[in-house]
């Protein structure tokens, strides 16, 4: 083979640049955005969200439904094949899910399948999932990082399969196949004729993805025309500069990423294990913080509007999302109100200023965390109600220590596994959740178990609203910002906006020139 062919192929195609990092091409070995972004291009799902919607529809499936509250039955489309020609049957689907559970890799997404009891393939086209409990998010889970369907003839049942084997085995079931794969350097995609799912055929035959190590390099690359599309991540400064460039278009789409502060109910001021423990005072402190932070300022000044204010634990754009915090605290329109916060504190009898030990991690949620928390500190202190002791800690220590109640108030962020409001609720507020901040509300937990089992769309949406209201009142976490998906493209590239949707999946198949 000579270099000429590859160069010619690619010239007609689209080149995408990113600073993502891939840990594994094998869906069983990764649970991160960078890897999932690739898997989304090349693997089909039983259920997947079409362009423009957060909600899932059958993808490789012909139909899918709950045959009883804990049984989910999927019928596959006719004549499905992988790119290598192998038939894609229910046996591959069963293989896919069994192997996720069998491998349960350290870095894998098997925890998403915690509710899966068994997978059966009664015939070539039918798959029956048996769940441990009623779970209305199951169709969404099928579109999550745990859901890419893999070829049982290429993948190993018990261990991770190497990228070389996957690529040479051409075991792809999505819109694209990978023809050349150099991990974290470059990927060459070619449209997969065998794909026949909800997304339709890829609009461009050939896509090249280049992986940059530095945001600035990506910025300069798209500016210089080295890449047509720059997708994740560009710093606010870079974006502001690129927006001035006429030959480029900056696209914004809703993002699923949220940033919030966590209050540790034990160690926060007046928390349960503090000498001056008082639940009401603690609540007043949380409410006062909520009333003083100025989200607009954070979004604008620190993030140049690449993040938007977030007024609920569920981000805007998802089915069922509301904005309870907008009216509950501050000036009632989302802005801060020091007077209101002052009276909240004084009526609860909290003596001011309240000393807050605020923690954040400088290396996990982007370098702008430094600015974000410096500004929050300034805002809190400017109110005169708080003195803030701000401290940053590297992520690894941070994520260990935060569970050990070392941090009274601290920063966290969330990126969804799938585009369902529940993914922003259950992991946070069920008993023994991952946050571990000792918030334990029986009411909220009851609502959650009701919501997850509710198969009526409208009723479930209402329940989701109620839960948001309840946690907005208790404030175990204080939502601050919601990410936006921002893509910069050459002006002649089309289709970017089609795929910047609340599914948070950026599909190269939508792009064309």
């Amino acid at each position: 083979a000579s270099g000429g062919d590859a160069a010619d192929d690619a010239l007609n195609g689209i080149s995408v640049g990113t600073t993502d990092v891939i840990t594994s091409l094998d869906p069983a070995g990764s649970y991160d955005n960078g890897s999932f972004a690739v898997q989304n291009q090349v693997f089909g799902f039983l259920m997947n969200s079409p362009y423009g919607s957060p909600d899932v529809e059958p993808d490789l499936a012909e139909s899918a439904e709950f045959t009883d509250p804990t049984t989910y039955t999927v019928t596959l489309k006719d004549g499905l094949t992988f790119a290598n020609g192998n038939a894609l049957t229910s046996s591959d689907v069963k293989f896919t899910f069994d192997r996720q559970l069998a491998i349960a890799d350290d870095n894998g997404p098997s925890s998403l399948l915690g509710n899966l009891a068994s997978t059966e393939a009664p015939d070539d086209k039918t798959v029956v999932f048996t769940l441990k409990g009623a779970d209305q998010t199951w169709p969404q889970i099928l579109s999550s990082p745990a859901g890419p369907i893999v070829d049982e003839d290429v993948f190993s049942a018990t261990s991770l399969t190497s990228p070389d084997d996957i690529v040479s085995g051409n075991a792809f079931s999505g819109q694209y196949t990978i023809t050349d794969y150099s991990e974290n350097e470059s990927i060459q995609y070619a449209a997969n004729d065998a794909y026949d799912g909800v997304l339709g055929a890829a609009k461009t035959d050939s896509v090249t993805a280049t992986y940059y190590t530095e945001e600035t390099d990506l910025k300069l690359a798209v500016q210089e025309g080295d890449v047509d599309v720059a997708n994740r991540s560009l710093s606010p400064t870079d974006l502001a500069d690129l927006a001035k460039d006429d030959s480029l278009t900056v696209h914004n789409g809703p993002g699923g990423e949220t940033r919030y502060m966590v209050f540790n109910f034990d160690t926060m001021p007046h928390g349960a294990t503090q000498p001056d423990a008082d639940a009401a005072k603690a609540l007043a402190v949380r409410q006062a913080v909520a009333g003083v932070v100025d989200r607009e300022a954070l979004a604008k000044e620190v993030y140049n509007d690449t993040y938007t204010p977030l007024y609920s634990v569920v981000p805007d754009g998802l089915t069922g999302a509301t904005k309870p915090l907008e009216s509950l605290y501050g000036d009632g329109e989302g802005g801060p109100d020091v007077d209101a916060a002052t009276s909240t504190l004084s009526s609860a009898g909290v003596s001011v200023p309240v000393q807050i030990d605020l923690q954040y991690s400088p290396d996990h949620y982007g370098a702008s965390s430094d600015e974000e928390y410096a500004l929050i500190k300034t805002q809190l202190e400017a109110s005169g109600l708080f003195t803030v002791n701000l401290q940053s800690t590297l992520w690894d220590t941070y994520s260990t220590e935060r569970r050990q109640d070392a941090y009274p108030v601290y920063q966290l962020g969330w990126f969804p596994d799938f585009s369902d409001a529940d993914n922003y609720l259950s992991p946070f507020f069920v008993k023994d959740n991952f946050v571990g901040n000792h918030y334990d509300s029986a009411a909220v937990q009851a609502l959650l178990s009701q919501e997850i089992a509710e198969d009526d769309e409208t009723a479930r949406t209402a329940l989701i609203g109620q839960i948001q209201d309840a946690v907005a009142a208790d404030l175990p976490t204080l939502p601050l910002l919601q990410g936006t998906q921002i893509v910069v493209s050459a002006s002649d590239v089309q289709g970017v906006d089609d795929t910047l949707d609340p599914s948070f999946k950026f599909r190269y198949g939508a792009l064309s020139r």
Partner: protein
Amino acid sequence: MTVLTGDQIAPEPPAPAAPRRRRSGGGGGLGRYLVVRALLIIPTVFILVTLVFFLMRVVGNPITASVGDRLTEAQLAERLAAAGYDRPIIVQYLEYLGQIVRLDFGTTATDNREISDIIVTYGAATLELVFYALIVALVIGIPLGMLAAYVRDRWPDAVLRILAIFAYATPVFFAGLLLKLTFSVWLGWLPLSGRADTRIAIALGRIENPTGIYILDALRLGNSTITLDVLSHAVLPALTLGLLTAGIFLRLVRTNVIGTLGSEYVDAARSRGVSELRLVRKHALKPALIPIITVMGLQIAMLLGGSVLTETTFGWRGLGFQLQQYLSARDFVAVQGIVAVLAVIVAVTNFLVDVIAALIDPRVRY
């Protein structure tokens, strides 16, 4: 970055006193010396591996680092146990040593790749970079160092020395940024980052048995566009790392050449009517090279260290860059493995440097 210069390593006169001691051994002496010297690599590597093992266990684990904000306490504990990270550290250490002895460095914790695979893939990139940088450093550092020694204490010497200090004083990332802005963005002459254009990198990946050293692969393909592209990508990183090293070399050569210029045999040659230029070129340089080479060997460790920053700055995916990524991910298996290999490389280089120094110095020939 660690800068050691000749006069620190060998504070005594430049004439290589150390190797001379080995002379008396007679026939088998060199062989035995080499064997003992080679065996010394083992404790070096052992100490480093041990050091890294325990340090890395203190700084955290890859699982918490990667999914610490998604999993509940119980789920996390379960995964830690599955990976064996909850066992007593000494048990883990012994197990690791056992693996090392079998030359099995394991697979990385974060992305499940064979360490040996990583070494081969990224080692080639680092090798290429360090090689280019060394060329730049030698081509610039040695002649300019000789020139500075020749014109010592006059203004060209001062200019050269201050330039050398600048080369060394400018942090790699700062120099890299300035070079990038100048040559890539402003002048548009050279590519920004990476080792080759994406399409060309793909083409290079497709050839049979790629060495991973792009320039070799490109030459094998015999396509001038590709070769040019590969070379143009190498210019800035090689300059950044090379100039830094050249500054150090310049200083080293200058000091040592001035030192040898003061020795009696130079005076003796002068008394025979040998010209000044020839004195510098012939009489002063070669003996001065012996300590210079020894220090240059030590600089290899520095070059590898410097390559971390250079690789990061220029998106040059080599061992240094990879190492930093794994470090951030607290992937101790990967860090241990790469460090062990780096340690071997450094130890072997120092060993080879000793051998080369011995070859230049006829007094240690047997």
